[in-house]
C-alpha cells in the first residue's frame, strides 16, 4: 500500500480525468481485503448511495487509528483508499487538526465532497471523525 503522499502524487501526476480515474480505481483494487463477515449493517456508512463499510479501531500501543473499508463501487472504493491512507495511523488529536477534504480539493475531486448521498465521501469522512471524537 502507498502512503498518502505517494497516493497524492500518483493521482496528481495523471494527465486528464480518464487517467486520473483509472489511477483512483487502481488504488481501490490495491486496498487490503475487507473480510466478508465484517460487512454488517452496523459497519455500513449511512448516507452513501453506494455501499460502504468501515471497521474502525484504535491501536492500543500507539494510540493511532486503524481503519479498513470497502465499497461495492470501484470509484468510491478508490476514493475510500485515499481517505483511509490519510487517516490511518493518525492520533485522535491529529484527526481533528487535519482534514482529508483539502487533499480532495487539491486533487480537484471537489464535487465528490458535496453532502450529496450520491458517492458519500462526505459521509465517510464524517463517520471517521465522529468515531475519533466519541472514543
Amino acid at each position, binding site marked *: 500500500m502507498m502512503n498518502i503522499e505517494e497516493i497524492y502524487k500518483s493521482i496528481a501526476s495523471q494527465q486528464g*480525468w*480518464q487517467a486520473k*480515474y*483509472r489511477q483512483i480505481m487502481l488504488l481501490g483494487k490495491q486496498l487490503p481485503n475487507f473480510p466478508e463477515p465484517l460487512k454488517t449493517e452496523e459497519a455500513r456508512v449511512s448516507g452513501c*448511495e*453506494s455501499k460502504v463499510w468501515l471497521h474502525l479501531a484504535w491501536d492500543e500501543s500507539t494510540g493511532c487509528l486503524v481503519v479498513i473499508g470497502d465499497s*461495492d*463501487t*470501484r*470509484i*468510491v472504493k478508490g476514493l475510500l483508499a485515499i481517505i483511509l491512507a490519510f487517516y490511518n495511523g493518525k492520533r485522535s488529536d491529529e484527526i481533528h487538526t487535519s482534514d482529508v477534504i483539502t487533499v480532495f480539493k487539491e486533487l480537484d475531486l471537489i*464535487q465528490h465532497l458535496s453532502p450529496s448521498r*450520491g*458517492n458519500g465521501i462526505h459521509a465517510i469522512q464524517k463517520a471517521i471523525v465522529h468515531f475519533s471524537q466519541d472514543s
Partner: protein
Amino acid sequence: MFDVNAIRAQFPILSRTVHNNSLVYLDNGATTHKPLNVIEKEREFYLQNNANVHRGTHFLSANATAQYEAVREILADFLQVQSRELVWTKGATESLNLIAHGLTPLLQPNDIILISELEHHANIVPWQQLALRTGAVIKAIKVNRKGCIHYERAVAQIQNLKPKIVSICHASNGLGNILPIESLIREAKAIGAITVIDGAQSFAQIRPNLRELDCDFYVASAHKAFGPTGVGLLFGKYELLNEMPPYQCGGEMIDKVTISHSSFNQAPSKFEAGTPNIAGVIAFGEAIKFISSIPFEEWTAHKKDVFNTLISEMQTIEQVELYGDLNDNIGTVSFTVKNQHPIDVATLLDHHGIAVRTGHHCNQPLMDALAISGTIRASIAIYNTVEEIDHFIFALRDVISLLEE
C-alpha cells in the same frame, strides 16, 4: 413550427459547461430547468410587487392576491377542473400526505389500499401511515421482470380485492412507463374506490384532462414542470375535498378561533394554512404558459424523436440492459451496464458533461421486484436534442470501455 433551438434559448443553464464539456442534462425526471419567463416573473414579483396575500387592505396586497389567485384559474383551465378544487401545496409529496391524512375517517380495519410496485415512495409511505392509523392493508399491483404491469391482472386485482382507495402514478419516475390510468380509473370507480393519481411525472408531459380522466384526486410538483421549487398542487373533486378534515392548521384556513376551539374555512383555503409560496405560485403560472405555448402534438413528436433515437442507440450497446415500457413512455430510460455499478458509470458520464441519475429513484419496492439495487436513469425533456443523445451514447461507450479495461 417546432424549433428546439428557440426553446433552448429560453433556458440559459443549457448553455453552461460542466467539467469543460457542454452540459447534457438528462435528469429531468428529478427536476426540470426553468424557462426565462418563469425566472423573471419570480424576480419581478420581489422587485416590484411583493406583499402577503389575502388579508391586505392595501394595493400591493390586493395586487399580490389577484396574481396569486389568477394562477389557480390558469391551472384550473389547464387541468379542466374548477379552481376551487385546486389546493396549493409545497410539492407532490405534501399533496399525497394531505390526501392520505384527509381520507382517514373513511377507512375501516382491513380495508384495502391498492397501489402498484412502480410507485414512488411518496405514493407508498403516506398510505402505510394511513394503514397504521386505521388498520387498513396495502396491496400492490405487480410488475413483470422488465418493470411493466400486466393490465388484465391489474384489473383482476381491482375486481377481486375491492380496494377502498386506488392510488397509482400516471407515469413511473423510475422507468418512464405510462400507465393505462383511464381504464384503471374506470375499473376502480366501478367498484366504488376512491382514485388518486400521482401526476408528478405526467403533468407537463401528458397534460392530463382531469375532467375526462374523472379521477377523484390528482397531484403534481411545479419543479418537475418547468416551475420553481417549493410549489405543488392537489386537485380533489369538490365534495370529497371539502369533506376531508383539515391537514395543517394556522392562519388563512380558519373561520373562527377561540383558545379552546376553532372552526374552519371551506376548501381550498381550509387546506392552505399559513403564508403560501406566493412568488413560487405566481412564477408557476408562467411555467404553465410555457408548456401551453408549445402545441401538444409538436411536443410529443419532438420527444418521441429524441426518445426513439435514445432507445435504438442504447439497444446497440450489448452491455446495456434496458428496463420499463419502451413504447408507452414519457421519455425516461432506466438501464444497467453489465458488471458495472451505476455510480461508477454515472460518475464518469458526469466528466463528459452528462447529468443522469443513479440509484433506486425512490422506488425501492420496484428495485426489489426487479431484483436489482438500482439503475442509471436518463430522462428527457422538451429541450433535449438528438445531438445530445448522440453525445450521450458516445460518452456511454467511452465510459464502458474505460471501466472494462
